């Protein structure tokens, strides 16, 4: 059945900007609640068979990500410097395709723990940081974490980790088969008295919801899944939204401004269609799910009379408190081949060091996983002491299948000075003012990442590695977890949205994506973003029914 289409002149109930992890869920839930919905997506819609096992295209050439040639950004480490374009990929990278970054994620689905929501009061003020409590608790979000696991599809083993937060249901699917990196990680960590456990992944391990199990092709992170085993929005909630007959997904439609009337209400969105012609879609309400980079950019580019600092920005907080997930780890070589290019990227993780521990002398916590990397990316760099060319380099290349990664994923403290705003000069290929990123790691983030490197080295040593290559902890130059830039909170003076994801300043404008997060968690934010989307959609649908939008 062809999906519903709307004319731009029609006033739909909701226009949703972005079709990724949160936008897809928002579309399904609002459409199932009886609302007419148009989803705007910057990128194209690709069929499953169009995705290839092409590491050059997807990990080196912006195959489905925001391309620096057409969607450029600038970067600086602090506001005293002029931001410049950087070589290589954009500082803030995301997938520009129907499904958004859920199309190319690694699919690590970690719930936040109870502590994540209350660290502001647990730790008190930290110099240079803006660490506060969330306006919601883990208990309020738990039903929606469960909903993600069952509605979207997550495999894992409930109760396996002594550090897991409580849960109301197990995972709907068992974990994926372990690979050699998982076995070695588990071996090393258990020797040290730690508690590794099967990784929860948004990847089917069995037939689930008419999608097949993982074929273990080995290409998850950076790639879209051509057999639809990965639980990306484009294969899960978006077809279900369209099946309601009330939702249109409009691809290659780049929203660049939110329309406002004199009464201070959003009227719809201005966008460029696939022919780069300007259009306007009327809507009763606007929900922006465009990610932690594009959401603040859209609000700031929508400045208008009465909203001179940008929409929903009376607090001045839009774009601020940008967080990634700082971390450190190690690469390790073993005596026999692991063949990490086979199988889902991650099969074992560990949360023993999830909580921040005052005894360490700095704030920071995180998790570890055992993971693989694609050979193209792996072959670019060499361990210290290995030549970069010649016979010895060739020998190193021949050792590819003997290596694995032990990766730490950790906290980044929110800082007001770390932000997304608009570059005063640079514009993208559509003429839209481009993103300027200002970012510098908090000293505690760096200390924690170095501490993680030491733990990773210990685990790999205990696992019997014959060579260990500790990662370098450098200054952040960008990220893919784009968090915190329109944080939720009860106080309109210090936050952008309330606990129901409604902007404090514009009654019929809602935001839900990584930008909503108040703290960074410990890496792997997508399940939280999706749980927030299910929860927000519940409330927004109620507001719509009560004529409160």
């Amino acid at each position, binding site marked *: 059945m062809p999906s519903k289409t709307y004319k731009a002149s029609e006033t739909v109930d909701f226009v949703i900007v972005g079709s990724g992890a949160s936008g897809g869920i928002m579309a399904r839930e609002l459409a199932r609640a009886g609302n007419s919905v148009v989803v705007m997506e910057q990128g194209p819609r690709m069929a499953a068979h169009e995705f290839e096992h092409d*590491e050059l295209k997807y990990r080196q050439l912006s195959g489905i990500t925001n391309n620096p040639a057409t969607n450029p950004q600038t970067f600086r480490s602090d506001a005293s410097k002029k931001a410049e374009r950087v070589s290589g990929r954009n500082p803030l990278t995301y997938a520009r395709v129907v499904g958004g970054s859920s199309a190319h994620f690694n699919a690590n689905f970690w719930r936040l723990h109870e502590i994540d929501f209350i660290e502001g009061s647990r730790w008190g003020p930290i110099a240079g940081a803006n660490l506060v409590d969330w306006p919601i608790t883990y208990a309020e979000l738990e039903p929606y974490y469960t909903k993600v696991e069952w509605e979207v599809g997550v495999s894992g083993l409930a109760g396996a980790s002594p550090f897991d937060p409580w849960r109301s249901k197990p995972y709907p699917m068992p974990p994926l088969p372990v690979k050699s990196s998982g076995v070695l990680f588990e071996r090393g960590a258990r020797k040290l008295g730690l508690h590794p456990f099967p990784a929860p992944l948004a990847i089917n391990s069995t037939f689930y919801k008419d999608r097949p199990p993982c074929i273990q092709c080995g290409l998850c992170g950076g790639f879209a899944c051509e057999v639809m085993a990965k639980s990306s929005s484009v294969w899960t909630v978006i077809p279900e939204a369209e099946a309601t007959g009330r939702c249109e997904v409009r691809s290659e439609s780049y929203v660049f401004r939110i329309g406002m009337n004199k009464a201070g209400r959003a009227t719809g969105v201005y966008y460029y269609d696939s022919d780069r012609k300007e259009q306007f879609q009327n809507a009763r309400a606007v929900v922006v799910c465009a990610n932690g980079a594009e959401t603040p950019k859209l609000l700031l580019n929508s400045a208008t009379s009465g909203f001179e600092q940008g929409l929903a920005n009376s607090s001045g907080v839009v774009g601020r408190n940008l967080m990634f997930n700082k971390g450190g780890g190690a690469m390790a070589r073993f005596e026999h081949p*692991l063949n990490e290019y086979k199988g889902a990227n991650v099969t074992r993780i560990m949360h023993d060091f999830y909580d921040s521990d005052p005894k360490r002398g700095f704030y920071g916590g995180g998790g570890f996983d055992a993971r693989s990397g694609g050979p193209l990316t792996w*072959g670019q760099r060499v361990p210290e002491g290995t030549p970069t060319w*010649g016979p010895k380099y060739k020998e190193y290349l021949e050792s590819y299948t003997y290596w694995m990664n032990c990766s730490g994923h950790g906290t980044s403290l929110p800082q007001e000075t770390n932000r997304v705003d608009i570059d005063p000069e640079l514009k993208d290929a559509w003429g839209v003012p481009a993103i300027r990123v200002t970012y510098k790691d908090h000293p505690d983030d760096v200390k924690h990442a170095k501490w993680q490197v030491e733990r990773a080295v210990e685990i790999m040593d205990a696992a019997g590695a014959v060579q260990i290559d500790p990662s370098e902890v450098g200054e952040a130059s960008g990220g893919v977890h784009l968090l915190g830039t329109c944080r939720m909170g009860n106080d309109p003076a210090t936050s952008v949205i309330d606990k129901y994801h409604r902007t404090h300043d514009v009654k019929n404008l809602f935001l839900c994506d990584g930008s909503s997060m108040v703290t960074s968690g410990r890496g792997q934010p997508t399940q939280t973003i999706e749980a927030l989307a299910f929860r927000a959609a519940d409330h927004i649908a109620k507001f719509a029914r009560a004529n409160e939008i």
Partner: protein
Amino acid sequence: MDQSPPSRRQFLAAVGNLASAGWITLNWPQIAAAAEHSGHGGHGAHDAAPTTLSTLSPAEAAEVDAIVNQIVPGGATPGAREARVLYFIDNALGSFFAAQLPAFRQGLAEFGRGYAARFGADKPFSAAPDAQQQLWLQQVEKTPFFTAVRRLTVLGLIALPKYGGNHDNLGWKLIGVEDNHYWEPPFGYYDKDYPGFEPYPGTKPYTA
């Protein structure tokens, strides 16, 4: 009845696009086997690789090929030259890395001039004996030009053959990667005899 093996597209459509879970369950072994034997399930079964040079001049190409051959040399096993990395570089600089071509050309010219000056040579770098080539590369290995050639060499060695390098999958063979579309456990040496996940004291893992 003989059936032609399914194309990669047909394989993917069967497992992902068109069929119900029940249909896939019934037919999975046949689908998987057909894909495996057809060769269509592999990384780069379609899209012909370029077989001629279209960007670099013959003289430029000879120099680049000589550098590439020192970065990942041949010998007992094939190296970057045998994997036709030169064709990848030529293709890349004429298409997706075209913006880098002017700087690359300038870097190559400086590389050649520097070599001639250092060794008083009247023949190009590519005509020099191995030892002399290696000596010069040691002196320029930190330059942006050499770094660029090295990056392109690694990409060309391992990227899909359709881009021009990794001829006959020689790059994948070098690093030990088999060309297949899907895998089943055991994947490597260490997961062969994994006894299963042992719960920790005090925990009660449970499943749906």
